[in-house]
């Protein structure tokens, strides 16, 4: 995928975004950037606003302040489908597959922006629409092979086990041929083996397909192992950013995850 206009520049720049729901400030001045080919992670305690950052990037939510630039162009105010057409794909924390459709149809729906035949051509079927369907169906088979879900091809996704559903959702996002992939808790609720499989897929996506990724995840082992850089948010505010070892040593991050050090003055301030 081309990346002209910002050669050498970051793929995605998030600049000081603030998102409020009435009196609640979900995101409060978060800034970060993602370089081409980078695996960037966002971590933070529950309710810190990680998923809200994702929803802001895909413009499902509209931040009131700040700017989000993708390949140097602001995407603020665009509709979610327009953002998708720019090359940003995502998965969801609570799987959002199309439950009544089969695995093949789900992944083919991911090909929507790569296909162009109209409803009229589709109803006619024979000719251009059929040709396009067959070509994209072949592409879907590549993704099915890549994610090793051949056995479940024809099943309606609602019937599949959780781990497989997560993989199908990843496949649906990959089918969009994105330049940037947002992964919202890809290993949540998975056992060790499934987590390792998923980590393998994520690393393969980066090395074989060259797709940049932003990862939101609670599994610290996974994040520290595979992420290039990490942003830590707490109560909507950014509290640290850097390489994994830097973040691990950051006292603010430790405080957010493990609580304040029970020092003398903290104790007296709390009334003990």
């Amino acid at each position: 995928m081309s990346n002209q206009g910002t050669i050498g520049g970051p793929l995605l720049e998030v600049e000081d975004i603030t998102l409020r729901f009435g009196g609640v400030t979900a995101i409060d001045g978060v800034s970060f950037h993602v370089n081409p080919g980078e695996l960037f992670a966002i971590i933070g305690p529950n309710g810190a606003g990680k998923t809200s950052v994702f929803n802001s990037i895909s413009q499902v939510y509209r931040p009131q302040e700040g700017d989000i630039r993708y390949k140097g162009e602001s995407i603020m105010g665009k509709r979610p489908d327009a953002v998708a057409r720019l090359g940003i794909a995502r998965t969801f924390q609570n799987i959002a597959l199309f439950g009544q459709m089969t695995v093949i149809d789900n992944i083919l729906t991911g090909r929507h922006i790569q296909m162009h035949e109209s409803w009229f051509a589709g109803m006619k079927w024979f000719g251009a629409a059929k040709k396009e369907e067959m070509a994209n169906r072949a592409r879907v088979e590549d993704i099915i092979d890549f994610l090793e879900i051949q056995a479940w091809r024809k099943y309606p996704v609602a019937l599949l086990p959780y781990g497989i559903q997560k993989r199908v959702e990843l496949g649906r996002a990959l089918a969009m041929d994105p330049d940037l992939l947002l992964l919202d808790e890809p290993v949540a609720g998975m056992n060790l083996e499934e987590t390792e499989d998923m980590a393998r897929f994520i690393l393969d996506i980066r090395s074989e397909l060259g797709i940049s990724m932003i990862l939101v995840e609670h599994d610290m082992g996974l994040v520290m192992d595979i992420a290039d850089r990490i942003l830590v948010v707490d109560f909507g505010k950014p509290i640290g950013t850097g390489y994994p070892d830097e973040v691990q040593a950051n006292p603010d991050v430790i405080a957010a995850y493990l609580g304040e050090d029970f020092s003398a003055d903290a104790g007296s301030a709390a009334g003990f």
Partner: protein
Amino acid sequence: MAFGRPLLRTSYAEDAAILPTWSQRGALGVAGFALALAALGVPFFEAIPAFLLGGTWLTPFNTMLVFAVAALGINILVGVTGQVSLGHSFFMGVGAYAAVLLGGDGRGGAACIPFHEQLGLLENTTRCGLGLPIWIWLPASGIAAALVGILVSPAAVRVRGLYLAIVTVGLVFIGRHLGNMLPEYAGDAESGRRWPPLEFRWWRRTDDSGDAFITFDEKGAWFSWIPGTDGITLSDDQKAFFFYLFVVIVATVLAKNLMRSRTGRALQAIRDRDVAAEVMGVPEREYKRLGFALSSAYAGVGGALLAVNLARVGPPEWSLFLAVDFIAILLIGGAGTIAGTLMGTFFVRLLPKMVERFTEKNADLAEGDGPVSTIASLLLTDGSRSDFGPIATSAQATGWPLPVALWNFVIFGVLIVVFLIAEPLGLFGIWLRIRNYWKGWPFSY
């Protein structure tokens, strides 16, 4: 072409085929052929439908075929796109009136006088109509309904669920009101107006004898031009059957193609997860509008054919009850599936006719002896105090026992509830279970 191994597919095209296996193609072909022979009145083939529905079985069967066209439309909107609509009868009405304004017989000079000039003189005026041929008015009825669908979509795509249902109910009442206000176009509530006949002409009718080169609307011979024969003499119902069957087949194939192509998947994606669909690059409102337009186009064609089929129709025909019938068809047949929609139409339209027919038959049976008569006499009653039973046979019966027509309402109400709870995929789901059982037979899976 793996003839003996139906599950072995060797190309993506085979995998995407509408009828992927030879057994499906064969079964449908044989069924279609048998149906055509039955419609032509071939004794052996006609025996079953004549037994179930009576000698004039083609009349309700033709109406069923027309309903199938409109039902395929509501399936696109409610079953595929997931937008609950109770306004289907409104769009059917739009299509029907487009058909009658373009195709209705407007000769007589006084046609299309503006409403305000006609007040008080309604009896004396000819109904409005341009007398154009079917190849104009039938597509135009679909296009007109689709345009009206697009016109109301700005309101409809912004609401969902119950709110959308209420908005679309509003359409039905607006339509009824317009129909009552404009009797010179719509026909008045009691007598309605005549719809154009099913006949092919090149252009407008020029004389009373008609200059149609083929007609589906009158008893007469087909193929009489073949030298040495008199052709086959067919009734109007028989001829119309072939026309409706053709329209249903075309409508089914188009709907099936839509379902298996990019657009159909986008519509289903909106039904299953609208936010995820948008994030996949599907513009939600545009596709909802498209779903509305396509569904309305089917409704328009179905409505036009329904009016033609009934011959004389007034504004009350396009009521909320008609729209609810279609919801029943979807829920009983299986929302979102083409085969289910057709099964649902068959069930909802023809089962009541069968029940009615057997009640009539059994009224005679109840007079005789034997177990059948005992059951029949237990169920049926003429409404007198000495005769108990839940089904009234006399037309005058009011209150309990209920007459057959009301029992049909009760049965469908109960069926909708049962299907919603026990089998959300409807008749199609039951068919799937049966099929999967025999696929694995004698193993359980």
